[in-house]
Structures are given as C-alpha cells and as structure tokens.
C-alpha cells in the first residue's frame, strides 16, 4: 500500500472540535485529517474520548459551540444530525455491527438501503446482483443467501462493512470502524484486515479505532493517539516506534495514592476462594486463589475474558468447565447456592441485573437475606426498615431516610452504594465486584472504595474486575492480568501503577500476536 501524500485533499478534516459534559471536558479542541484511501488507526485507553469523538462525527453528539468544524470531502458537517453525516458519505460500523443474525446476508445488506423494487415488488435478481457487488467490494467471498448466524465473526464484520460501503445513499468517503477486532478471534483478524485494505484501495478513508497496538503496524498508514481528550501523537506508522506509541498512550500519569496495606495477608493463610481451570464465555482455563483480607484486581482488554470472569465464578454466566471452591466447598454454579456459601456478586450493570429499579431501597438491601425478618408467620416490616436505614446511614446514602423510595429515584452513585450495602449486609466470605464504580462521580467513587476496603478488613476476600486502571491501582493488593481467557501475569506491591498496568496489558497483547 502506498503511503498517501499530503498533497491530496482530505476526505475528512476535523478542526477545533471539543466536547464537554457538564464540568468534564471529554474532548479538548483537536485536529485530525484523513486523505482518501488512507487507513488511519486511532488508539486510546478507556475513557480517552474515542467514543465521544465517534459520536460527534456520527452526529449523535453536537460538539461544544465555537470554532469547531468538520469537513467531509470539503463540505461542512451539520453537527448533531445523523442524516447530515450519512449524506456526506460518512459511515460507521459499530462494535455490535447491527446485523440481524437470523436473516440472510442479502436481507441484511438491504436493511437500511432498501430493496430494489418494481411496482412495489422486490426485484430479487437485481438485489442479488447488488449484494454480490457489495460483497466483492470488500473481497468477501460468501453466498448472499447464507444466514448471518452461519458466518464467522470476521465474515460478519465484513458484511457490516460491505453494507456501510454499498452505494445506496451516495458515495462513501469516510468509514469509521469502532474496535472491529475487540470480539474477534485472533485467527480471523487477518481476514478482516484484508477486507479493510480492499475497501481503502477504492479511495475510502478509514478511521480504524482499536485497542490493539499490533494492528497499527499490520494495517495502518498513519496513527493517532488520543489521551484524556487530547490527540497526543499523529504520525506515519513507519516513523512511529512502538515505544513512542506506548508512551503516548499511557503518558506520564501521576501515580495515585495506593492503599496502605495494614495487615498483609499472610502467604500461609488458607485461601478462601480457589478458582481452577475455569472455562466459560471467553475463559480458557483461569486459575487463581484469594486469601481472606486480600483485594485482588482483574485487569485486561475488552474481549480478554475480563468481563465474564466474575460472573462465571458466581454463576451469573454459564460455567463450561473447571472448579470454584469457597473454603474448600465446591460452588454449584448457581447464584443462590453461591450466596449460601457466602459469595456476593456486584453485577457490572446496575440497570440490567444489578438492582431492582422499581423496588425500594429497603427491598433491594434485604433481598439476599430476609428470612430473619420472617417471624411468627409474618414479615417484620418495621425491623426490616430499621435495619435498612441503619445501613443507608452507614453508607451515607443521599437523600437520607429514603428507605421506601424506589431504587430508580436515587443517583447512580447512591444506587451503587445501596447495592454494595446489600452485599456487605450478608457479611460475605468472598466479594466479587464487577465494575464497582461504573458511572459514579468522583466523591461517591472514593466512598465506595472505602467500603470495599472495610469489607476486606472485615476478612472478606475481594476480587475487583474493572476497566478503570486507576481504580485497580488504588484499591488492589495484587493484580492479575488476563488475556485470551487466561491469567498471564501477576503484579504485586509497588509494581502496581496505572502506567505499569497499561504497559503490561499492551505488552501481553504483543506477545499474543507473536505466538499466534
């Protein structure tokens, strides 16, 4: 592939675009230009502003008012309008692809564009011809009659790309791929890269958003790194050594204050939680142990198995193999039996599976252990309310005294406090916390961290899985790095820092490519 020259008119030109949400600046005024036929990799850690940038370009967010301007093939983008982005020839393939898996490739290609019709009747043969063309444009050799569910993951991504590029609705100038390989098996990545290159060779500028450093070198012409809302590096890939990119990604972040270990869990004490050979969704045999009073972090890229590990231990997700023991007793793989053995699990999404939004704070707090209130054939509601309000006071839930208010009426941080209280209340032996501070503000986050440490001081074995490196670095005594469904590395003591965590994750990703 020839490196595009700077002389060509840009396919997309972003200038002075910034975005703030309330007091938080997510994107600082930034510039980015892509020329036709260029594959431009955009790298950035979680929370760097990547998704906000994509949403601004796609017309889902309007940027801050001011000098911000986006030109697509020379024409200004009308901010906040998805229609405008589409008309100017900008297409986005999201991570979830948006395909109907039970329908055929042909039908999926026609969704959005619409079938060619004559007098209201679908012209099958023409539709098939157009589908074949669209597939050929990305070099995908599959029958349009196949159902999407039968395709490989890379082929599915290919269909989504083909659909985005199909000529309906005008010429495509810019294609944005949002982490297309995040959920792709390593062996299918090369296939996807071929398709992306084929598309670029037809003059489409491609903004390729990814976590994976190696993809930059294998695929991209140029690379930009986004950190804390700034573009900190834009270079031709040939001029960008790996070390520079990593440095740009991780930055010289200030080391946060780490938890002072008062009682170092003795190496000899018996582990409470023993996980061996655990298999399941994206897990390929995970082994680790946690001792009482220990806080262990799980860190890894999206798709590494990090998201499913705790749920699989608890029984929220199906376990396909392996063994989980608490104090030597086996867990059956069902939430109810895990709770009986003293295991608590804070779900990663409080709206889906985490909390019962329509039920009251009190009812949420007591649900896992409410039999004690049932005496003499009657639920002792007053005792239940009293105990709940004590917990809410202890956790500093705002507004105070709202034990009977539905969970939905609390702010995110307070909802999370109630849900963590619900599990602290059962005095768990093991606490599995999946994204414990998802979407809460800084103040609540610090409070939640204190409660986690309290639970640990009370002798619980705590495991935290988080995408937030700072959180892991602040709270954990020991961090396990997970990749491709197995634990590959362990960090302890002074090795734990945000920069080091990210470096390890990126490095383990390198070795993944070398071995595969």
């Amino acid at each position, binding site marked *: 592939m020839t490196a595009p020259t700077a002389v060509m008119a840009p396919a997309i030109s972003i200038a002075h675009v910034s975005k703030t*949400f309330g007091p938080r600046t997510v994107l600082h005024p930034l510039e980015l230009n892509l020329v036709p036929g260029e594959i431009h990799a955009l790298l950035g850690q979680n929370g760097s502003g990547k998704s906000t940038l994509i949403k601004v370009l796609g017309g889902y967010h309007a940027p801050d008012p001011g000098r911000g301007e986006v030109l697509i093939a020379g024409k200004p983008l009308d901010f906040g309008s998805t229609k405008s982005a589409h008309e100017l020839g900008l297409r986005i393939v*999201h*991570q*979830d692809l*948006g395909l109907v898996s039970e329908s055929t490739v042909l039908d999926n290609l026609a969704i959005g564009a619409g079938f060619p019709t004559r007098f209201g009747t679908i012209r099958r043969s023409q539709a098939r011809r157009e589908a074949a063309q669209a597939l050929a444009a990305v070099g995908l050799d599959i029958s349009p009659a196949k159902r999407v569910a039968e395709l490989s993951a890379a082929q599915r991504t290919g269909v989504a790309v083909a659909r985005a590029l199909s000529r309906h609705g005008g010429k495509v100038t810019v294609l944005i791929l949002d982490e297309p390989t995040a959920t792709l098996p390593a062996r299918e990545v090369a296939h996807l890269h071929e398709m992306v290159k084929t598309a670029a060779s037809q003059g489409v500028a491609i903004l390729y958003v990814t976590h994976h450093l190696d993809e930059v070198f294998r695929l991209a012409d140029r690379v930009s790194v986004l950190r804390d809302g700034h573009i900190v590096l834009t270079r031709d890939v040939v001029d960008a050594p790996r070390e520079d990119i990593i440095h740009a990604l991780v930055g010289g972040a200030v080391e946060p204050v780490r938890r002072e270990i008062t009682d170092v869990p003795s190496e000899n004490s018996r582990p409470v939680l023993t996980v061996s050979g655990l298999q399941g969704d994206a897990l390929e045999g995970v082994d680790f142990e946690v001792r009482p009073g220990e806080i262990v972090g799980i860190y890894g890229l999206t798709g590494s198995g990090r998201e499913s590990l705790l749920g699989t231990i*608890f029984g*929220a997700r199906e376990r396909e193999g392996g063994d989980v023991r608490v104090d030597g007793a086996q867990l059956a793989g069902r*939430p*109810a039996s*895990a*709770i*009986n053995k003293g295991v608590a*699990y804070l*779900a990663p*999404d409080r*709206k*889906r*599976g*985490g*909390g*019962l*939004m*329509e*039920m009251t704070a009190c*009812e949420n707090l007591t*649900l*896992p252990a*409410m*039999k004690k*209130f*049932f005496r003499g054939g*009657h*639920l002792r*509601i007053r005792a239940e309310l009293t105990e709940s309000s004590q917990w809410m006071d202890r956790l500093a839930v705002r*507004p105070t*005294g*709202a*034990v*009977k*208010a*539905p969970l*939905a*009426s*609390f*702010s*995110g941080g307070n909802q999370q406090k109630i849900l963590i209280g*619900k599990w602290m209340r059962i005095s768990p032996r093991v606490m599995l916390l999946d994204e414990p501070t998802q*979407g809460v503000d800084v103040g609540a986050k610090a409070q939640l961290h204190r409660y986690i440490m309290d639970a640990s001081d009370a002798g619980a074995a705590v495991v935290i899985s988080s995408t937030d490196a700072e959180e892991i670095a602040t709270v954990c005594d020991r961090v396990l790095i997970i990749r491709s469904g197995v634990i590959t590395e362990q960090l302890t003591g002074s090795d734990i820092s945000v920069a080091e965590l990210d470096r390890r994750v990126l490095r383990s990703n390198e070795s993944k490519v070398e071995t595969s």
Partner: protein
Amino acid sequence: MKVTGRKFSPGLDRFSGLYLWGLFFVLFSFMAPRTFPTMNTVHLLASTEAIAAIVALALLVPMVTGQFDLSIGAIANFSGILAVIVQTNGLLDPVGAILLGTAVGTVIGMLNGFIVVKLKIDSFIATLAMGSILEAFLVIVTNNREPLPVDNEFFTGLTQTNIFGFQAVFFYMIVIALIVWWLLERTPAGRYMRATGFDREAARLSGVQVDKWSFLSLTISGTICGFAGVLFVSLTGPSLGFGPSLLLPAFAAVFLGSTQLVPGRHNVWGTVLAIFVLATGVQGLQLVSGAQWVASMFNGVALIAAVGLAVVRRKKLSRPKKEKSKGKNQGGGSLSASTQTHGTQGSSSAHHAGQVSEKRVEV
C-alpha cells in the same frame, strides 16, 4: 425530583379509583334513583362480583411474578363443571367435589408452571393454549350438554348462605384476599415473587430462585381458580360458558389495581377495589340504559385505560434519573425489544410494557 418516602396525599393518583367509585354512586343514584341506590344493589354486586374478584386475585399472583395466566377462566369453568358432574352422577359427595375441583385447578396450574418454566414457553402462549385445551376437555366431559344443577343444600348453601344480608361467597372473597395479601406482602415468598416479576435477572443474581417462584405462582393461580369455579357453580348453577366472561374483568382489575393505592405495583386491595368500581359502573349503566353490551364495552375500555395509566406512570417514575445512558443500542426498536422479552425470557408481563415502549424512546 425530590425523593421522599411514600407519603399520604389526597392526590388523584393513588385514590382515583375511590373518587371514581364515589362519582358512579352519585351519578347513577341521580339517574336511576329508584333502582340504583338500594341495599339490594349493594348485596347483588357483592355476591355477583365476589367470584370475579377471586379470579382476579388468582391472576394477581402470577402477574406479580411476571407471568401471564390466560387460562384462569377456563380453569374455573372446567373445575366447576367437573365438581357438578361428579355429584350429579353420584360419584362424590359435596365435600369431595369441592376438594376435587380445587385439586384439578391445582394440577392444571402446575402443568402451566411446568410448561412455562421447564419447557421455556412464554406464559402468554402457554396459558392461552391451555385455555383452549381445557375448553376441549369441557366438551369431552359434558358432551356439550349443560349438566343438571346439583340438588344438594349443603353445596348450594356453601355460597348462598345469608350472613348479614350478604351471601357467604362475599366473605370467601375477603378471606382469600387476606391470604393473598399475606402471601404477597408479609412473607419472603411474596418479596421473591415481586422481585422475579420486576427484573428476573436481577432477582436471580440476588439469589432468588426465579423458576421456582414462577412455577408456584402459576400453581397458586390454578388452585384459586379451581376453587372459584366450584363457588361459581354453587352460586349460580352449572353453565358451559361462564369461564371466558371472567377473564377480561380480571385483567382489567389487576391492571387498574396496579395504579391504585400502591401505584406501580400489582396489589391486592387495588385489585379488589378495581373489580367493584368497574362492576358498579357496569351495573349503573345497565340500569340506566338497559343495554346488553354495556359490560363488554365497559371492561374493554377499562382494560385499555388501566394499562395506559400504568404505562404513563412508569414513564414518569423513571424519567427524572438523569444519567448518561451507556447502552449503545438497547432493544433496537420497540418491536424487537418486545418480542425478545416475550420469546426468550417468559418473564414479561404487561407491566413491562412501559419499559419496552420507553426503550423505543431512548433508541
């Protein structure tokens, strides 16, 4: 929105049913002064609506757990007719017949539960089909001929005995309402059922055995319906087609009830209130107009109005929390969202209808 505990307010919200009831009394007393405002009307309504209320209470239990039961009318009909036949054929004495009717209802309820929980068929479909199957059995056992009424004073006295001017059946309704209230509001089981109905996955992750409670809720519904069927034939004699007429008022009452007293929740006293408000409306209109179609029209309109109210309320409730929604593409349009909840989980009930249509707004 300020968060407060549930506080007493005379608002039109949770007591609207009571106001409506009062309005009916005033209106119809004015329009039919000689026939409507009499003790006779009160006694008549109390006993004719008692069975409708019992069936609505039966439906309430699975609805709280997030399961539909569309077979309630058919179960009552089948059990009631069976209780008559075994007596007229001299197979069982009245007590045996009462027990048999109730037991048959229980078994059908268990069957519903099995189909929903084990075979993972959505309760809407499963119980709709069960209703049809029971209709077939009804024809098989009766040869499509209305059985003779039971000539037994104990059996008819079961419901028709006069207590303070009210027929006994009214007091059965009160007792059953108290039992269902105790179950739903004063036992852990009730809490588990409610959690299951509100959010099946969240309940499961909190250790609630959602399958067990779904099964039991359908079983309880069957039991109560079986008993209600026996009461019906004791009260008014056997008829082949009384079941279907119980279905719609029950749904209307459960939904309307969920907007009353404890808004946002299916609840016992709201349901009972709704049954009697609706019946008063029907009765009054019938006295005033003499038209035969009043009941069907009134119940149909009430069902739509009740569900509409519940949906509006739900939207209001979940509007104020303002958070950046992370869900990129939840639901993907209301149609797919609703089919998903229906098809896979078997947990959806129309009180999720509000959530579903809300997703559409978000997307």
